[in-house]
């Protein structure tokens, strides 16, 4: 029989010592940032009914979900995303709350990834959702908080990329094509697959919209992108979208992030619930976006409560893994001291070490029978102080 009781499932791992310290440091820092802007924490359930992730704009491919069956035979999914459960929560228990709502979360998500490709199936994500406002101010608040989060541990090698899903949706609406073809175009644009996109669009027609779509994957970079875009295709809607986005771009640049903001109008996420501005954050050293977010004005209404919303999530594991490699990483400390008491002084020794701990030291109790063994242990662990408790307390520097 094959033994699975000694290993953990594919895509998961145990965290030890310094790894935990880095992860908690990241979580705590993010929570501080979110709280300082008036966000309150919510914790959603780890398992949800499958239906939550299976309808309308929130359908997550079922092969990516970890699924279980409850006692009544109903299909349950392990939380693959936090925004969808929070939308459910807002539309039910929070629908009478005073708007806007500022919510934050730090919780684990599960995604069933392809085997043996080195992807994590268990990811801690932190993020905020700002609910009940469709204003530019709200977009800007979320973006600037995203920036603050992204740069919490890395001050230089990062980029925030902004785009709008509307540009693509507007161009697609000009074409006379079915849903499947539209999805195929979206897929090719998001993969920047220039050759296949050109072939596909050549088969559809040669007009302003197809010509613009062909260029869409190339529409990324700095501020010049806006001019390139409006030259490609222009109507009232697109003009407004581009000028809104440009406003956001300039505002963020003025916050001191000059040169760190990029624009990509070809950002067309697989997740369908985004309706307006979308953005992603990159950190050098991590091969995939660490932060993603955007405006989703229709998602909450799918649960029966109409509210505009925007938010983002950031991959805590990715940020912690970078922190762990940096000089600033919190490291596990050796205990400051060890306390040893001979047989009749055991209780006294415990009381003494408790007192030392209260005074702010990290103190271990010696579990050994003899002083010699205690010294040997302290030497191996690198503990530099030994307290021997008898009638009086003797302090020994090791």
């Amino acid at each position, binding site marked *: 029989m094959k033994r699975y009781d000694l290993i953990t499932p594919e895509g998961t791992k145990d965290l030890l010592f310094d790894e935990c310290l880095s992860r908690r440091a990241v979580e705590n820092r993010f929570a501080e940032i979110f709280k300082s802007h008036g966000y309150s924490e919510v914790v959603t359930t780890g398992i949800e009914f499958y239906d939550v992730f299976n309808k309308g704009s929130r359908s997550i491919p079922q092969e990516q979900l970890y699924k279980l069956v409850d006692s009544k035979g109903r299909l349950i999914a392990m939380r693959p995303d936090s925004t969808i459960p929070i939308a459910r929560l807002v539309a039910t228990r929070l629908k009478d709350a005073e708007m806007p709502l500022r919510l934050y979360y730090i919780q684990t998500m599960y995604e069933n990834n*392809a085997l043996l*490709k*080195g992807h994590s199936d268990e990811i801690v994500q932190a993020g905020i959702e700002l609910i009940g406002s469709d204003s530019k101010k709200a977009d800007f608040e979320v973006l600037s908080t995203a920036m603050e989060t992204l740069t919490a541990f890395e001050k*230089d*090698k990062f*980029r925030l*990329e902004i785009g709008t899903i509307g540009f693509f949706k507007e161009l697609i609406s000009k074409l006379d094509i079915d849903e499947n073809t539209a999805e195929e175009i979206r897929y090719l644009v998001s*993969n*920047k*697959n*220039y*050759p*296949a996109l050109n072939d596909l669009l050549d088969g559809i027609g040669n007009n302003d919209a197809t010509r613009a779509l062909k260029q869409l*994957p190339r529409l*990324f*970079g700095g501020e010049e992108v806006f001019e390139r875009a409006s030259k490609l295709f222009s109507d009232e809607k697109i003009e407004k979208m581009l000028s809104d986005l440009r406003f956001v771009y300039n505002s963020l640049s003025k916050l001191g992030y000059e*040169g760190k903001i*990029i624009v*990509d109008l070809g950002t067309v996420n697989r997740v369908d619930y985004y309706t307006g501005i979308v953005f992603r954050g*990159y950190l*050098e*050293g*991590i*091969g*995939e*976006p660490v932060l993603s977010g955007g405006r989703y004005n229709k998602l909450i209404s799918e649960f029966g409560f109409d509210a505009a919303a925007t938010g983002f999530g950031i991959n805590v594991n990715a940020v912690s893994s970078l922190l762990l490699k940096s000089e600033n990483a919190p490291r596990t400390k050796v205990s400051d001291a060890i306390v040893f008491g001979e047989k009749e002084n055991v209780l006294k020794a415990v009381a003494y070490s408790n007192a030392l701990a209260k005074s702010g030291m990290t103190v271990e109790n010696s579990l050994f029978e003899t002083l010699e063994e205690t010294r040997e242990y302290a030497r191996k662990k690198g503990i530099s102080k030994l307290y021997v408790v008898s009638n009086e307390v003797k302090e020994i520097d090791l």
Partner: protein
Amino acid sequence: MYIMNKPIRIALTKGRLEKDTVGLLEKIGFDCTTVREKGRKLILPISDANLEVVLAKANDVITYVEHGVCDMGVVGKDTIMEMGGSFFELVDLGFGRCRFALAAKKGSGFYGGYDIKTIATKYPNVARAYFESKGMDLEIVKIEGSVELAPLLELSDGIVDIVETGTTLKENGLEIIEDIAPISARLIVNTVSMKLRQAEIEKLVSLVEANL
């Protein structure tokens, strides 16, 4: 733009695609002596292009690029179709041309009858996706070596495989039923590298496109 002196790392599929890519880089004007005289080394600098060439098996090219440990890669469309993954597929390099095809024993009438067909292939995902698009249920057997053997030994009704000239098929009494997809080498780029090193990558890509 912040300055990065780190070279751009490009993973090449060992073998023919490697040679064709080196040919292309030389046509652009880069000095590829280090790659031509590589010995047993697996990471090779091309200093005048600020490139670092990594030689890998096709599947690994995708893995390295996906994880961002290589910024770019050259890999066949066959591997991309079989492996999938998320990266940008920027350029069809035009070399390494062949195609995926469905073949069966000559005159066997592959699509006839009501029974569920068995397909032998080295590319189970490609085969599955192709028949899925036709709404056809079928059994797939993964074969590692000469796939042509499977129908001859009557393990399968047909094969899905890469075909260049079709000579091997013909010599073994098989015929092409239909073509599935054309294949050629592609230049792929990690999604984050594309954003963090846009200027350098775009410059290289336009040089490549100009010299195809």
